[in-house]
């Protein structure tokens, strides 16, 4: 058993930290206030930053180099997400939706032709991906998907509404889950499609005005009779639900890594303040109330770090990881929220001020308990896996 990062991973961390601190950190206010426009005329991230991210292959870290990626695997991707989320949860969210689930679904289930056509430009960062699962009536209950795909000759015609879609307004490619056989539902009746945003009928309606991660564009996507050629079916017809769930199993690990980065930053800030701030004649680090908060923060962060990188290792070595990935997402998001809350408490009123990064971090952290499957869904995934091994199949 060896728990150390390899020299390669250590140098990758240095590379990602350098990128995050030198390219992203100076732009966080600009990203937060979301004043930039994308090629579709909707809000997105600064174009020059996205270009730089593409140049350094930040948008394709886990994918093999023959598909335009960095070839750093899930472990490399988790290091990236940790480093990016330390600096900008908004930017990390855009990368996560693009790489961790959007492009990832094509990598996992795409044909060689689909990988060459779509994954290569996505991994190179020349195009942006979105992952269109959620609908107004189908959030946690993804099996209640209503978007229809009706076969017409060599194509499918897609009709429906997807919402809360990260990158929806800036994507060139969206992976969409739709019903091909309503009678079968999720078990054989849903299919995944690779849809280009430039195709007729792909419409962006409202942009969400969110509490946090305000620099990441989230919008509603309306599919109004979009004609999708048959060769853009991702995976097998009828097995789209499987493709989507399998993709989320990988994406959740990266989300845990992002939470780890966010939490670590909060601990770093809290420690810095505790040794600087003086009250009752000395630094507040001497107060047991502060020490215990800091110790609890550190304990949870260390547990999360071990969990995240063990799960990444399981993915990289081809082991089943559904339960562990759900635990990464569940535990990671809750640790990040708890640690952020404690850091804010240590800063006191100063932490509540918008002049300090804690207020934004507090708002940014909250979404991780909700998106990519609410934490309630993660608990169902974990419990299902436990009971399945006892021969009991539980249903939500």
């Amino acid at each position: 058993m060896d728990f150390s990062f390899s020299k390669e991973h250590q140098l990758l961390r240095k590379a990602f930290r350098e990128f995050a601190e030198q390219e992203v950190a100076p732009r966080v206010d600009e990203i937060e206030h979301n004043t930039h426009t994308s090629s579709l005329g909707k809000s997105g991230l600064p174009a020059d930053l996205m270009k730089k991210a593409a140049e350094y292959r930040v948008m394709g870290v886990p994918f093999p180099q023959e598909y335009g990626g960095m070839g750093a695997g899930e472990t490399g991707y988790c290091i990236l997400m940790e480093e990016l989320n330390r600096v900008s949860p908004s930017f990390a969210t855009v990368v996560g939706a693009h790489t961790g689930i959007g492009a990832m679904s094509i990598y996992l289930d795409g044909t060689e032709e689909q990988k060459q056509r779509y994954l290569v430009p996505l991994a190179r960062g020349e195009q942006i991906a979105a992952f269109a699962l959620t609908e107004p009536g189908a959030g946690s209950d993804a099996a209640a998907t209503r978007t229809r795909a009706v076969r017409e000759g060599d194509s499918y015609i897609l009709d429906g509404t997807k919402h809360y879609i990260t990158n929806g307004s800036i994507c060139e490619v969206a992976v969409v889950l739709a019903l091909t056989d309503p009678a079968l539902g999720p078990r054989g009746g849903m299919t995944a499609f690779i849809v280009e945003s430039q195709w007729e009928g792909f419409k962006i309606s409202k942009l969400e005005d969110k509490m946090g991660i305000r620099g990441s564009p989230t919008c509603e996507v309306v599919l109004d009779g979009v004609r999708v050629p048959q060769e853009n079916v991702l995976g097998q017809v009828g097995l789209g639900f499987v493709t989507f769930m399998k993709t989320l199993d990988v994406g959740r690990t990266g989300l845990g890594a992002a939470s780890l980065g966010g939490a670590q930053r909060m601990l770093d800030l809290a420690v810095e303040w505790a040794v600087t701030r003086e009250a009752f004649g000395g630094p507040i680090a001497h107060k047991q109330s502060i020490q215990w908060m800091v110790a609890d923060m550190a304990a949870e962060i260390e547990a999360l770090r071990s969990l995240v990188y063990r799960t990444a290792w399981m993915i990289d070595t081809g082991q089943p990881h559904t339960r562990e990935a759900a635990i990464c997402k569940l535990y990671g998001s809750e640790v990040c929220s708890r640690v952020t809350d404690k850091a804010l408490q240590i800063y006191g009123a100063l932490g509540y001020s918008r002049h300090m990064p804690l207020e934004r971090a507090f708002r940014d952290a909250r979404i991780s308990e909700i998106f990519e499957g609410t934490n309630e869904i993660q608990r169902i995934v974990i419990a299902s896996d436990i009971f399945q091994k006892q021969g009991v199949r539980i249903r939500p």
Partner: protein
Amino acid sequence: MTGYHSAERIFVNREEYIINPADLNALEMALRVKDENDDAQVIALGLGPARVDNALREALGRGADRGMLISDSALADLKTDAAGAARLLAAAVHEIGDVNLVLCGAVALDSGAGELPGRLAHALGWPMLSEVYAIEEITDTSVHCAQQIVSSEADLPALLTVPRDANQPRHIYGARVVNAYRGGEIAAWNLDDLGISPDDLEPLTRVSGRRFPPERTLGTRLEGSLDEAVESLVTQLRARELI
């Protein structure tokens, strides 16, 4: 207050070794030559213990084509100096062959001596231009450089020293890091490979003491609203008769 403290020992942070910052600027200058000349090759050359291998792989990650390491267990016990290091590096440059430009960081962060580049140029018998901020032009036979005050030129082959902050080094490319660690080994030479014996490395100089660099004093932080801060600034500038 500016002053020197005498220090018995300088504690090294053993958690992380870094490439000397000025060397990163020298590497960036070399990579810019390569950006402009398709057939140019950039070779990162390191001298030191086995761990220097990681610094060379970082150089590959930033864009160098090859890394070469001079490493020998005998060196650990030798008290050599910049002259000895220059002999070793010069031998390696000859071994590589067909080198027409050597770029060195002007001063090393840990010693602050800045002695090595001059010694190396001497050992090679090449002209040296120091404190080069940018290469203005490079031809088959000469290099034209911008220094802080003047521009200078030298015949090739030549050695240039590059000060810290002469340019903004590019970041590390993750894909190059992956290839640097999975691709192949960093070529390594020992003293025998370079035809040098420990006797050739007799030091010409000795370190006779160490001290901390001058302490920097922190500036004054102006508190309060913008108006209050401006008023305070003006008052302080007037008090010092600067305005």
